[in-house]
């Protein structure tokens, strides 16, 4: 133990550089994973977070929520299907709005609090219950702020804040169905009815969502039922985006820890002559292994702390337009994996020491 710490104290520059390099790699893994997760969540969050296990689209929509148009009467038909505990209509569209950060696109979702289809990511306040209320995810809103919908030129008060509930990586607002209907009618005067985009379904306790989805497809004309996870993966382009970011995160994670492992491997191998000398004067392989392990643990833990601080700072300074938060599970998992892999790399080279004849320290090669 003393040996390891004494060396670190005497070679401050070397260990400082090592901690810096490892911290940068851990930072890269944490930062990339955090950003990627945030982007994918902000594209699919609205659908993923809807209350309910099954979604129903029109069969002509060919698996695309935004192309789906259903008459409001279909909710009652879906509710009659065996295995359906409750059903609620969901409307979704892109509208223009005056947002805190200027005029822009707002994804507007119409659903009823307490029914299937309502969002589940509420972090503050409550879901809207009246026509002058909205719950927001994105654009930095606080409770009591106002959002003006350009189509109807009316301000709605923010009564709830949501997390992980965005759609299309855009600011997303949740309103009661009547507000959504009003916006659609303002843009398209004379429409006979405002179609639903989907019906969200809560299945009865013990019922299999896949079976209920199929039952709905069979029983209700001109609709198709999906288990929610399937509906999310069928959003156009989502498969490409999730796979791209999956590869990106996976590669960074694996390469990050392998490169850190290489660092320790090279540094331990470079000290082989010193280790051999120490063995010649009586140090056991176990003691040397413990010294290497202590140094690696100290470096990785110090680098981990530095990397978390760096990532936290970088996340605060981001301007990518999507909500990003650092997950404690990710931090623990990454630092843990790096520590494990680094110990393995360091100890691998220690194994070579045990095979070396201490006599070589006295001059033999």
């Amino acid at each position, binding site marked *: 133990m003393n040996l390891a710490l004494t060396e670190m104290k005497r070679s401050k520059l070397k260990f400082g550089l090592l901690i810096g390099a490892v911290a940068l790699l851990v930072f890269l893994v944490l930062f*990339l994973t955090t950003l990627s997760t*945030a982007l994918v969540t902000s594209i699919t969050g609205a659908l993923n977070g809807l209350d309910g296990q099954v979604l129903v689209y029109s069969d002509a929509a060919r698996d695309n929520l935004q192309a789906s148009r259903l008459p409001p009467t279909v909710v009652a038909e879906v509710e009659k299907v065996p295995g359906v505990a409750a059903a609620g209509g969901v409307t979704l569209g892109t509208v*223009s709005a005056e947002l805190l950060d200027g005029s822009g696109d707002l994804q507007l979702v119409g659903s009823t609090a307490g029914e299937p289809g309502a969002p589940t990511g509420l972090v503050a306040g409550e879901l809207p219950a009246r026509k002058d209320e909205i719950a927001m995810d994105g654009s930095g809103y606080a409770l009591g702020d106002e959002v003006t919908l*350009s189509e109807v030129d009316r301000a709605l008060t923010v009564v709830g804040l949501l997390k992980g509930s965005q759609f299309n990586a855009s600011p997303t607002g949740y309103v009661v169905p009547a507000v959504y209907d009003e916006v659609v009618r303002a843009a398209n005067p004379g429409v006979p009815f405002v179609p639903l985009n989907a019906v969200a379904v809560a299945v009865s306790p013990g019922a299999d969502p896949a079976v209920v989805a199929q039952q709905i497809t069979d029983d209700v004309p001109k609709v198709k039922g999906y288990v929610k996870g399937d509906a999310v993966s069928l959003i156009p382009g989502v498969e*490409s985006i999730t796979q791209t970011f999956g590869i*990106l995160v996976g*590669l960074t994670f694996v*390469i990050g820890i392998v490169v850190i492992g290489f*660092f320790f491997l090279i540094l331990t191998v470079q000290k082989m002559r010193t280790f051999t000398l120490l063995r010649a004067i009586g140090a056991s392989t176990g003691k040397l292994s413990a010294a290497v392990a202590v140094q690696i643990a100290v470096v990785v833990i110090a680098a981990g702390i530095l990397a978390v601080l760096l990532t936290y700072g970088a996340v605060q300074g*981001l301007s990518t337009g999507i909500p990003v938060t650092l997950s404690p599970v990710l931090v623990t998992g990454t630092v843990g994996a790096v520590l494990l892999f680094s110990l393995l790399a360091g100890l691998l080279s220690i194994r070579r020491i045990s095979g070396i004849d201490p006599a070589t320290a006295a001059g033999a090669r």
Partner: protein
Amino acid sequence: MMLALNEIRRGRGRFAAIIGALALIVFLVLTLAALGDGLFYGSTGAVRNTTATAYAFNSDAEGSLIRSSLKETAVARAARAPGVAAASPVGVLLSAGDTPAGEQDLAVFGIQADGAGVPTTVSEGRLPAPGENDTAAIDQSLATSGVAVGDMVTVGRTDVEVVGVVDDVSYQLQPTVWTSVRTWREMRNAVRPEFTGVTDDINAVAIEGPEGAAPQVPGLTVLTAEQTGLAIPGVAQQKSTLNTIIYTALAVAALVVALFFALVVLEKRELFAALKALGTSTTRLGLGVVLQAVVATLIGIVIGAVASRLLGMVVPEQVPTLFRNDTLLTIAVFTLVAGVLGAAFSLRRIARIDPATAIGGAL
């Protein structure tokens, strides 16, 4: 010089590990860049690779081709605006269609074949001729999935015959189908019953004019082709996220490579002291260190670049990748400079080494 190369030859295992670490870093940055470019270019090809330099939308559409809705009369208005060389209608429909390769998500573009907004990257066959309906050119990604010239593609109840293939024109990561405005409207009205009977609407006006300029058209919002790409829902956020990721990876890679070489050189202080005691000059030692850094970095770059290309060949079809030579060059230069700088960082310490330490003094 010989000393540096001899050390590489004698310490193959250690240098292999150094080169391995460098190659992995280069591979990571190149692959991240290829994935990021693939995603961005796959989302915006349909507005990047046409003759249009700008698009005009209705003022509430926020530059979205899908949300914008105009009467066809807007085309004449745009054509009269100063700085507009040509203006043509554009219709867009995101739907699904039946193809010989099965059902596919599609983006159907209705265009005027002899007007603005026509794809410029035809790789096989031709575009629909002026005035020709019920024919279409398809995106290369659709051709890759098995649809060929002469095949039929059906959207709604309308069949079109494929007459050509166009490269890099996908839209929101969906393959595109380029047909006449009339055929597009037939397909759209069949898929979206609320448009039944509508015969004079379009989504936007494609404009040809000076590159990078957005001419003023009264009553309409005009965006350049590049701005139109960034206005596709989610694309600006994706691009911004991916750019942050790539620049961070590049900066981290450069710093890690520099720190790495600084560390490796520091570890050899004892050896350098002995060499100095034998009369080797600091300059010679410094040159040797830099040469080793250059050799290791160059080999690392080559291996990393090859590995990255190989990965590009095996990633699933749904994951778009684009390997650009300018990206490779930037990353190679960054890595090389970082490696040399990192090695040079330790030169000052080499210069300060007292040769006497080689014969017993503490370092």
